C-alpha cells in the first residue's frame, strides 16, 4: 500500500509547495522561474536560491536550515567569493553536501512503474570524497499479473594518499524480486548480489614519455538467485604502461586479470544440497602502437590475447561445469591524409576464439575471423565529394558439435554528393553486398546459400526560395536469395524494390505551413523455380500521399490538420516467355484524418488535443470481379496535458496526463480507453 500512497502524498506535498510559491511571486521567485534551461549550472542555482532566501517565503526557511547544516558556510559568503573563484568547480566546495532525490511514477496502458533515486556526493576533506547512490524501481504489469522490483545501493569512498596513489572502498548491493501474481506479498523469485571491495590505484607520469597506471581491487562477493547461492572472494588487477617518446610514435601495453573463488550451493527442496567450489580466472593482455611515417601518413597496430577458465554449478543437472575460453586478435590499420582532395584508410584484422565445456562438450564452439576494409574520400571537382568503401570478411565457426560453416561477406559502397549552387544538392548512393555461406557437412545442413543485395539511391534537395523547399528521391533495390543445393533451392527468389518519393513544403500568408509528401513504391518477388503460371511470384504496389497544414491562430495556439491517403494492391504475376502477366488479387485503400490543437497555456503548461478518424477498405478481385472483403473504421480522441515547473534550479516537477478513447473493431476492449500518467520530480537538498 505504501507504494501507492507514498508517491501520492509526495505529489500532493510538492504540488502544494509549488502552488504556494507560485501564489506569492516574490521578486526573487520571479527570477528563478525565468531560468528555463534544465542544464543550467549549479552557480545559477545558488543565485536563485539566495534570492528565495531574501524573499522570505516558505521555501526560504528550508534553505536557511540547509545552509546551517552545511557547516556554517553561508550562501552570502559563497556568492561573495564566486567571482574570484569562478574557475573552481562548484561541486568541490568542501563540506557542502547536496543529496539529490528523483522520483518518476508512470502508468502506460497496463504497465505501472515507480522509480526513485537518491544520490549524494560529499567531499569530506581535500583528500577524501564519498559518493552514495540508492535506487528503487518497481514495475507492475496488470494484464500479465506480474511485478518486478529492483533495488540498488552503491557507496564509494576514495582517499587520495598522494599525487600518485588513491585508495578506495566500494560497496554494491542489488536486490531483484519478481512476483508472478501481483497479489502475492512474498516474491516468487528473488536474487541478491552484494560486493564489498577495497582498491588501490597508482597513476604516475614517470617521464615525458612514460606513464604508468595500475589498479588493484579485492573483496568479497555474495550472490543468490533461484536455487543457487554462492559466496567468496574476487580480486582484480588492471594495469597499463604507455610509452610516448615523441609526436610520431606511441605504444601501450595493457593487462587485465581477475580471480574469483566461490563456494556454491544448489538448494533444492526435493533432493540434497549440491555444493561446489568454483574458481574463475580471466586474463587479457593487449598491445597497441601508432606510428606517423610522415605527417598525414599513419600506421597502427594492435594485438591481444585472453584466456578464461570458469566454473559454475548447473542447477538443474546438479553438477559443476567448467568452461575454458581463449581468444586472440591482431589488427593493422593505416590512414593517408596528406592532401585535402584525397584521404583513405585501410584496416586488416584477424581473430580467433575457442570455447570448451567439460560436462557438455556438445556445446563446444570455435570461430576464426579475418577482415579487410578500406575507405577513400575524393574531392574530384568543386562542390563534389566521392566516398568509396569496400570490405571483405571471412569467418569460420563450428558450433555445438557441428562440422561448421564458413561465411564470406563482400561489400562495396559508393556515395557521391554534389552541391549545385547554394540552393540545391544532389547525392547518389550505391551499395552492393554478397554474403556466401558454405557448410562443411552438406548432408546434415543442405542450406549452402548466397544472399546478394544491391541498392542505388538518388536524392535531390532544392530550396527555390527561402520559404519553399522540395525534395525528390529515387531508389532501386534488389535482393537475391540463392540456395545452391537442390534440397532447398525451391525457395530461391529475387525481390526488386522501386521507390519514387517527393516532398515540398512552403509557408503561406499568416505563417501557415503546408507540407505534402508523395511516395510510390513497388515490390516484385520472383521465384526462380516456379512452374505454376500464377504460383508464387508476387507484386505489391503502394501509393501514399500525406498532407499536413499548421495554422498558428495566436502565438500560443496552433491548429494542425493532417490527411493520409494510402493505396496498396497486390497480386500474382507470371514471367513466362519473357512476357509479364499480372493478376491482381486484392486492393486496399485507407484514409486517415487528424485534427490537432496545441495550446501553450503558460510556459509551464502545454495542452494537446487530437482527434483522428481512420477508414480502411479491402477488396478482393476474382475473375475481374471486385468485392468488398472488409471495412475497418476506427476513431480516436486523445488529450494530453504536460506540466513542467522548475522551482529555482534545485526542484523540478513535471506531470503528464494523457487520456485516450478509441473505437476500433480489432483492438481488444481493455485497450480502447486508457489513461496514461507520468509524474517526475527531483530536488537537490
Amino acid at each position, binding site marked *: 500500500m505504501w507504494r501507492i500512497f507514498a508517491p501520492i502524498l509526495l505529489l500532493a506535498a510538492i504540488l502544494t509547495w509549488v502552488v504556494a510559491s507560485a501564489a506569492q511571486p516574490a521578486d526573487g521567485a520571479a527570477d528563478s522561474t525565468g531560468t528555463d534551461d534544465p542544464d543550467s549550472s549549479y552557480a545559477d542555482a545558488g543565485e536563485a536560491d539566495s534570492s528565495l532566501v531574501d524573499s522570505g517565503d516558505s521555501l526560504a526557511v528550508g534553505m536557511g536550515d540547509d545552509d546551517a547544516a552545511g557547516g556554517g558556510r553561508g550562501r552570502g559568503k559563497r556568492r561573495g567569493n564566486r567571482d574570484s573563484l569562478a574557475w573552481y568547480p562548484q561541486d568541490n566546495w568542501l563540506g557542502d553536501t547536496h543529496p539529490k532525490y528523483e522520483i518518476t511514477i508512470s502508468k502506460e496502458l497496463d504497465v505501472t512503474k515507480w522509480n526513485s533515486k537518491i544520490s549524494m556526493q560529499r567531499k569530506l576533506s581535500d583528500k577524501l570524497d564519498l559518493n552514495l547512490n540508492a535506487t528503487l524501481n518497481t514495475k507492475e504489469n496488470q494484464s500479465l499479473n506480474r511485478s518486478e522490483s529492483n533495488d540498488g545501493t552503491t557507496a564509494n569512498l576514495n582517499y587520495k594518499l598522494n599525487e600518485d596513489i588513491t585508495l578506495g572502498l566500494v560497496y554494491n548491493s542489488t536486490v531483484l524480486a519478481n512476483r508472478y501474481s501481483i497479489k502475492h506479498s512474498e516474491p516468487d523469485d528473488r536474487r541478491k548480489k552484494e560486493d564489498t571491495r577495497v582498491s588501490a590505484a597508482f597513476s604516475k607520469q614517470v617521464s615525458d614519455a612514460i606513464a604508468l597506471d595500475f589498479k588493484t581491487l579485492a573483496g568479497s562477493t555474495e550472490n543468490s*538467485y533461484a536455487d543457487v547461492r554462492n559466496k567468496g572472494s574476487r580480486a582484480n588487477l588492471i594495469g597499463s604502461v604507455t610509452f610516448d617518446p615523441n609526436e610520431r610514435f606511441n605504444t601501450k601495453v595493457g593487462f587485465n586479470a581477475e580471480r574469483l573463488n566461490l563456494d556454491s550451493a544448489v538448494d533444492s527442496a526435493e533432493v540434497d544440497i549440491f555444493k561446489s567450489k568454483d574458481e574463475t580466472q580471466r586474463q587479457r593482455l593487449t598491445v597497441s602502437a601508432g606510428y606517423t611515417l610522415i605527417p598525414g601518413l599513419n600506421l597502427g597496430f594492435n594485438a591481444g590475447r585472453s584466456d578464461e577458465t570458469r566454473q559454475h554449478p548447473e542447477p538443474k543437472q546438479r553438477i559443476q561445469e567448467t568452461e575454458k575460453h581463449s581468444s586472440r586478435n591482431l589488427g593493422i590499420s593505416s590512414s593517408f591524409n596528406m592532401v585535402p582532395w584525397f584521404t583513405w584508410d585501410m584496416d586488416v584484422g584477424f581473430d580467433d576464439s575457442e570455447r570448451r565445456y567439460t560436462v557438455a562438450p556438445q556445446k563446444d564452439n570455435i570461430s576464426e575471423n579475418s577482415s579487410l576494409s578500406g575507405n577513400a574520400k575524393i574531392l574530384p571537382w568543386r562542390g563534389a565529394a566521392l566516398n568509396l568503401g569496400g570490405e571483405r570478411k571471412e569467418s569460420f565457426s563450428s558450433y555445438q558439435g557441428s562440422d561448421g560453416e564458413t561465411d564470406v561477406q563482400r561489400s562495396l559502397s*559508393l556515395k557521391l554528393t*554534389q552541391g549545385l549552387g547554394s540552393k540545391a544538392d544532389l547525392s547518389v548512393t550505391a551499395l552492393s553486398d554478397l554474403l556466401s555461406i558454405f557448410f562443411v557437412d552438406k548432408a546434415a545442413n543442405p542450406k549452402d546459400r548466397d544472399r546478394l543485395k544491391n541498392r542505388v539511391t538518388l536524392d535531390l534537395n532544392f530550396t527555390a526560395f527561402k520559404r519553399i523547399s522540395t525534395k525528390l528521391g529515387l531508389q532501386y533495390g534488389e535482393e537475391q536469395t540463392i540456395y545452391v543445393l537442390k534440397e532447398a533451392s525451391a525457395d530461391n527468389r529475387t525481390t526488386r524494390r522501386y521507390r519514387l518519393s517527393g516532398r515540398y513544403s512552403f509557408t503561406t500568408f499568416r505563417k501557415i505551413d503546408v507540407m505534402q509528401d508523395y511516395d510510390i513504391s513497388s515490390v516484385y518477388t520472383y*521465384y526462380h523455380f516456379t512452374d505454376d503460371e500464377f504460383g508464387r511470384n508476387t507484386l505489391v504496389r503502394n501509393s501514399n500521399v500525406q498532407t499536413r497544414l499548421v495554422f498558428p491562430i495566436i502565438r500560443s495556439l496552433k491548429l494542425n490538420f493532417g490527411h493520409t491517403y494510402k493505396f496498396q494492391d497486390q497480386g500474382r504475376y507470371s514471367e513466362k516467355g519473357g512476357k509479364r502477366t499480372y493478376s491482381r488479387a486484392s486492393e486496399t485503400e485507407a484514409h486517415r484524418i487528424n485534427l490537432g490543437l496545441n495550446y501553450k497555456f503558460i510556459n509551464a503548461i502545454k495542452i494537446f488535443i487530437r482527434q483522428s478518424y481512420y477508414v480502411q477498405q479491402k477488396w478482393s478481385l476474382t475473375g475481374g470481379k471486385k468485392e468488398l472483403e472488409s471495412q475497418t473504421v476506427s476513431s480516436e480522441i486523445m488529450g494530453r496535458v504536460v506540466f513542467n515547473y522548475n522551482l529555482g534550479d534545485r526542484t523540478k516537477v513535471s506531470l503528464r496526463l494523457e487520456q485516450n478513447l478509441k473505437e476500433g473493431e480489432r483492438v481488444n476492449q481493455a485497450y480502447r480507453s486508457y489513461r496514461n500518467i507520468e509524474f517526475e520530480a527531483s530536488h537537490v537538498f
Partner: protein
Amino acid sequence: MFFRLRRSRRTLIPAGFVCLLLAASCSPFSPREAEEPVGEASDYVEPQDPWDVISNLKNSIETQSDLNYERLFAEDFVFVPDQSDVNDLESIYYPGVYDDWGAETERQVGRRLLDESLTSHPALSLGEGEVAEDTDSTYVVRHDYELGLFRGRYKFYMGTAIFRLSLNPGDGLWYIRQWEDSRSEAGQAADRDTWGRLKGEIRATS
C-alpha cells in the same frame, strides 16, 4: 578558354553522374548457380498485413527456414527479455548476454536456432492474439506461445510474447520492431523456460 572550361565542366558533371549511376546499377558480385529443386518451397507470404508476419514467424520456425526468419525483423528491431531470464543468465557467468540485442543478433541467434544439424522437429503453437494497438503504421499484439524442439532432447518452452510491428514506408510491408518476452502463468506452473531464455543461452554459448 574560360568559357570552354566552364562548358566542359558543365557537361562533365552530369556525365560523371550518369556514368556513376550506370556503374552503380551493375553489381560487381554474382551469386553461385543453383541446382534444380527436388522439394516444395516453404510457405512465405509478403507481409502486407501484420498478421502475415506472425504467420511467417510460425512457418519459418516449423520449416526451419532461417532466411524467412531473417526477413521478419525491422532494421531497428529490439528484443526485450524477461527480467528473471536476465537475472539468471546475466549473473556473474554471462554478463551482458542480453545487451544490444538488435536485428543482427536476432538473425544470428535465429540461424543457430534453426540450424538443421542442431535442431529438429520444431513446433510452434500460438494462442489467440490480443491486440493492444492497431493503427495504419503500428500493430501491437500479445500471444501466449509454446515452442517445442529437439536439441539433444525434446524440450518445450512456454511464455508470452508481445510483438510490436511497424509498417515500413519504403516497401509498404510489415516487420517486427520489438519483441517482448515474458513468463506466463501456465509456463510458470509447468516449470517451462521461456523462448527468450533459449535465445539467451544460444547467444551466451556461441
